[in-house]
């Protein structure tokens, strides 16, 4: 059974289109490819034995090219398409056992969906579109109006309430689609290529706004896309689909750093790694990390031993106060100073662990002082040297370290 913090769990889900889908599942062991099965039996395997768990509040991106079965998969979750076999659980409840009425309640309250071409009602105003889901479940009056207003505010459509749908640009229309899905307050948002129909510039802007929105609205999101960059940018985890199968599931960095097979490698080859790989995955233990009260001579000794010319200095609470170079430390010692704090250089550059390498790069160009990677409380998590940075951006063989072990594909 799914764990407590699992939101959606798919177990061995199949979807096959054709006259006798069960027979195809029964014979699935014989190793025929999707194409062969189509030619021999006329069945289309859209989703093939897919399993995964999605955690609460996670953005789970399913990425694949057209025909990979990703849109079918997302529709299996709310049963717009009936899966041929397999179980799908939402918060531990088996969706495949639900009758028509239960399913309707589920769609009304727990799952809402955003569509590629928006799926809006052209004969209704913006606010009436947003109110649609509420109206369907019988809500009306002030409460409904407030929910609509809130959703419109969240997507930045305040002031557009009375506009007609066909007066809006594509980006604005998808905001309406998003607001409609948010208004019902469902825990799970299914987004089927929501930004694919938009212009590249608008698309990027919508992605950024979506990330911002996630800061305030916690939801489990299943996000479908054919755009790997979008997947890597938005996803907490990414599942790569090919011919109905999931080839790999992992964090964006795992996907980029440790592609499971040729197919994924080929995919991630052209990914601008600097945008995907974060400082966390290339940072190293600082060679010399000392307390500001420590003896200067000892620190110089440590630096010489380690063969580095920079030492990082923390305060009594473990927060990074600054750093000192070997040269500075020796000068200070010659001047008769004995404590490390007397040689500390308070100005230093730092970044957070999830800063992409592209953004780290300008911070380490000055000289050979490594970039300090701090958490929110200014504790030093590690340092990024210029060498590691350059290697991380070029590497294709996955030399990143310091990662947790993500889920590999089955």
């Amino acid at each position, binding site marked *: 059974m799914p764990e407590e913090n699992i939101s959606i769990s798919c177990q061995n889900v199949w979807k096959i289109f054709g006259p006798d889908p069960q027979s195809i599942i029964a014979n699935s062991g014989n190793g025929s490819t999707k194409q062969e099965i189509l030619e021999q039996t006329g069945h289309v395997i859209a989703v093939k034995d897919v399993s995964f768990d999605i955690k609460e509040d996670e953005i789970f991106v399913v990425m694949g090219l057209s025909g990979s079965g990703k849109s079918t998969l997302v529709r299996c979750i709310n049963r717009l398409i009936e899966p041929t076999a397999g179980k799908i659980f939402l918060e531990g409840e088996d969706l495949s056992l639900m009758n028509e009425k239960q399913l309707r309640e*589920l769609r009304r309250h727990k799952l809402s969906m955003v569509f590629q071409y928006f799926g809006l009602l052209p004969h209704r105003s913006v606010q009436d579109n947003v109110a649609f889901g509420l109206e369907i479940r019988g809500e009306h009056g002030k409460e409904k109006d407030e929910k609509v207003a809130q959703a419109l505010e969240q997507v930045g459509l305040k002031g557009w309430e009375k506009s007609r749908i066909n007066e809006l640009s594509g980006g604005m229309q998808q905001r309406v689609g998003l607001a409609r899905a948010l208004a019902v307050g469902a825990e799970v948002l299914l987004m089927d290529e929501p930004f694919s129909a938009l212009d590249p510039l608008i698309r990027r802007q919508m992605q950024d706004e979506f990330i911002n929105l996630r800061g305030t609205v916690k939801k489990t999101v299943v996000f479908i896309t054919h755009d790997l960059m979008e997947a890597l940018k938005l996803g907490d985890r990414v599942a790569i689909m090919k011919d109905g199968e999931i080839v790999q599931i992992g964090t964006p960095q795992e996907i980029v750093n440790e592609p499971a097979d040729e197919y994924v490698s080929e995919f991630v080859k052209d990914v601008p790694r600097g945008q995907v790989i974060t400082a966390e995955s290339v940072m190293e233990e600082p060679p010399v990390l000392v307390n500001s009260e420590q003896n200067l001579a000892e620190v110089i000794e440590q630096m010489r031993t380690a063969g580095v010319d920079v030492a990082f200095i923390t305060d009594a609470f473990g927060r990074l106060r600054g750093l000192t170079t070997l040269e500075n430390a020796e000068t200070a010692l010659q001047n008769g100073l004995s404590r490390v704090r007397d040689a500390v250089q308070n100005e230093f550059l730092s970044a957070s662990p999830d800063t992409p390498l592209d953004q780290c790069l300008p911070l380490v160009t000055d000289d050979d002082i490594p970039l300090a990677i701090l958490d929110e409380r200014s504790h030093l998590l590690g340092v990024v040297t210029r060498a590691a940075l350059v290697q991380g951006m070029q590497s294709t063989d996955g030399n990143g370290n310091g990662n947790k072990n993500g889920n590999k594909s089955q």
Partner: protein
Amino acid sequence: MWDFPELNFPIGEWVNRAVAWLTDNLEAFFDVITTAIREPLVWIKNDVLLWLPWWVVIIIVAAIAWKIANWKVALLAVLGLFFIGAMGRWDDTMTTIAIMVTSVIVSVIIGVPLGIISAKSDRFEAFQRPILDMMQTMPAFVYLVPAVFFFGLGLVPAVVATCIYAIPPAIRLTNLGIRQVSPEVVEAGRSFGTTGMQLLLKIQLPLALPNIMAGVNQTIMMALAMVVLCSMIGAAGLGLEVLRGMNNLDVGRGFEAGISIVIVAIILDRITAALGKKGTTA
């Protein structure tokens, strides 16, 4: 060798027997239909159109035209109806409009639900298609006479015959309209947990409205096309005047009635066309 062999395939005989059987056994049924059509029809004709003073009728029609279409159509309606009255064709025109309005209402009441069923069921669509083809291509004379058998002479069989001819576009275009609703919008509706009825009322019918109105528009035009034919089974109104003009070689009389039909057609066409357009943008 050259002549077709005499197979004596007695379709005509069967039809005659069927008509006789229907007359004998379903009289009560036809009486109910007759009453259901006659009552509203006579009410519209005698208690509305012919009861109201002519200028009130013109004002009402113009107001409707203005509201649904624009002032140009309203002006057209005023001038057109005044012209009809000036030719002395007012009463005939009101009778014809009463027949048409009733026919169109009946056609819509029957046609739209059947169109909805056709859109929902491929099997029903396949089943109704040849029947509709037959209804539209079968010469109207063929069913005019049985219509008299079942419904008597006059306005009621005229409405029935008109409906036979005018229902197909209502069914066809409703079916088409619903089937043309973007599948994604339908999917969106379902994804929010609509019941079948909610889907129909809130998504499919509103989006199919332009098509349905085009169907109503066609229904009206077909009903007008039937006006003259229906006069042959005693339906009063402009059609009868056309027929009288023809039979008496009184070209002028036929022309007056004919031009009145044209005016009514144009006014109704403009109004319903505007109604259809409104559906797309509202």
